[in-house]
């Protein structure tokens, strides 16, 4: 498996897009911190990058990469290697490179400009988001053999989590405005990895006081020590479940 991992990693580096991605992230983050007059504002800009760009890049790159390496996969399958190992190696290789690019690009300025615990939280959450969206990409690329369909599915899923989901939540707020929906809302936001990540970072910032009662409920359930364990478990769950589903499909699929 290590050998496959090595090949995958080498291949991705040779691709150069990951490097460009890292440099772009670095440019964004450095300029965000450099242009804003205080670190808190810069951090909010970086937050936007983390929540939008990182998932989009992860999901698109991974989907296309998986489709493009179908021949490589077929070649590997002709060797006496377990199917699950190939898929896992591919997943780990892609996830690692996305995470590395993110940590290199956004992590360094974060550690320099932001406070230690905020930087740590942003890096942890961004890395997990990268892995989650690689997993989602794996799922959507294994569902169909049609490349256009697969990429389409990936983009749709990204759109859903990054945009539509919040719209739905807002819609529910208005529909149930007369009811005490705080707890339900908190639970609901945990159902989207992007929302969960966003609020986890916000809770570390001063603006958390503005989140009011709902924010306090959220902090109690997801921001306390055990809450943090729970929320990271949820994020990990978001990474593992799509990947596990894709793995099951891959094992039995006639390629």
């Amino acid at each position: 498996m290590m050998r496959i991992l090595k090949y995958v990693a080498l291949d991705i580096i040779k691709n150069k897009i990951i490097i460009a991605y890292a440099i772009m992230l670095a440019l964004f983050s450095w300029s965000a911190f450099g242009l804003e007059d205080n670190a808190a504002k810069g951090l909010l800009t970086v937050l936007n990058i983390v929540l939008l760009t990182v998932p989009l890049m992860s999901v698109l790159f991974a989907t296309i990469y998986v489709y493009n390496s179908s021949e490589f996969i077929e070649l590997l399958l002709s060797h006496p290697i377990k199917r699950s190992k190939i898929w896992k190696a591919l997943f780990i290789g892609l996830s690692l490179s996305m995470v590395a690019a993110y940590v290199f690009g956004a992590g360094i300025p974060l550690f320099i400009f932001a406070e230690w615990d905020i930087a740590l939280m942003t890096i942890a959450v961004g890395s997990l988001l990268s892995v989650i969206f690689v997993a989602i990409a794996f799922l959507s690329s294994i569902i169909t053999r049609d490349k256009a369909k697969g990429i389409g599915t990936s983009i749709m899923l990204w759109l859903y989590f990054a945009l539509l989901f919040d719209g739905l939540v807002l819609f529910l707020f208005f529909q149930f405005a007369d009811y005490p929906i705080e707890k339900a809302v908190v639970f609901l936001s945990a159902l989207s990895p992007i929302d969960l990540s966003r609020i986890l970072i916000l809770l570390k910032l001063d603006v958390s006081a503005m989140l009011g009662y709902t924010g306090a409920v959220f902090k109690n359930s997801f921001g306390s020590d055990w809450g943090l364990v729970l929320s990271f478990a949820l994020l990990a769950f978001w990474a593992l479940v799509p990947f596990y589903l894709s793995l099951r499909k891959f094992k039995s699929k006639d390629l």
Partner: protein
Amino acid sequence: MDIRINYRITFIIAFFLFIATENSFAKTIHVGKGKAFTSIRKALSVAQSGDTIIVNAGVYKEGNIIIDKPLHFVGKDYPILDGELKHEIISIKSDNVSVSGFRIQNSGRTAMSDPGGIKVYDAKNVTIEKNILTNNYFGIYLQYAANCIIKNNVIKASQKEENQSGNGVHCWKSDSLQIIGNKIEGHRDGIYFEFVTHSVIWRNIAKNNLRYGLHFMFSHNNAYITNYFKHNGAGVAVMFTKKVVMINNTFEENWGDATYGVLFKELSDCYLSGNRFIKNTTGIYFDGSNRITAERNLFKGNGWGMRMQANCVDITISHNNFMGNTFDVTTNGSLTLNQFFENYWDKYEGYDLDKDKIGDVPYHPLSLYAVIVEKNPPAMLLYRSFMISLLDKSEKVLPSLTPENFVDNKPRMSPYNL
């Protein structure tokens, strides 16, 4: 001729000498180790009206010290009056008393009698100056007082719970007070007024208090000038009052849920100018307030610069700077009976073709998201979501949900120098 003038001068001098000797009938009594008295209480019982009691350095644990005649009570090198957590320390029950230069500590703590470090009962012309009050229940407590001066005292407490702590300067049913240059820290409320009128509150610093830095009710015709309120548990809250003037105060870092730079509840006929609201969750919160003018104030780095409930009427907001606030202004209704003009808004994106420093396009300070949050507080959970930014942008171009007349028709292009 010359002789006659000389006579007159002699007469005048003699007259003044007579007055001076009259005054010098007042004695000076020294208290302390090796002095005439070692006990303050004994000295007080001997003292006549108008005497000066000078207390020398040392620790005095004499329970409740009651001053019931006009006296000058002076501490030399900050003698310590200790209430041993049982007694009220100084009780002033006479007019024309002055207390200065003491270190007053450890007053009793009971909610029944509200013991204070220094408590004034029903007195006029009392001066409390240059004292250090530490670890008391109430710091300086005035009830039914008039024409009193509380000046340059340092008042500190370190209780953790609101219910175990009294207020730093607490005034009740008083008139014509001067509260000047005090530093108040760690009490429940820094300065607390109820039914206090015609008073001036100048150059005080209230910070790190458990509840409010300043808190008043039914206290008409007072002026608050150049005070500094920082990092108080719930900021500043003022209620049910008419004719308040606030000039040149700073409200800073009052940050937390339900914490306000200033909370105005049912205030009318007030004037605010030159105040600085910096890094508060909410800069000013207007609720049921009428006829208020706020001009040349700075709102910087607040969560909400200003929250104006729709039950406010005739509030004029002009010539202010709004910079770096998450939301500049919000309201909870569609009816707007207040006006905004010639403010500087850092979020303004208009232009100024005729170069008169006034933007040519009106500015709508209310963002869609601000309106949504005001109607539906849990929606704050969507803060910084991409969806919200999109909605805000489209609302800016084509306003549909935000009240149309909530507008600054003459937004300034550049900030005022405040």
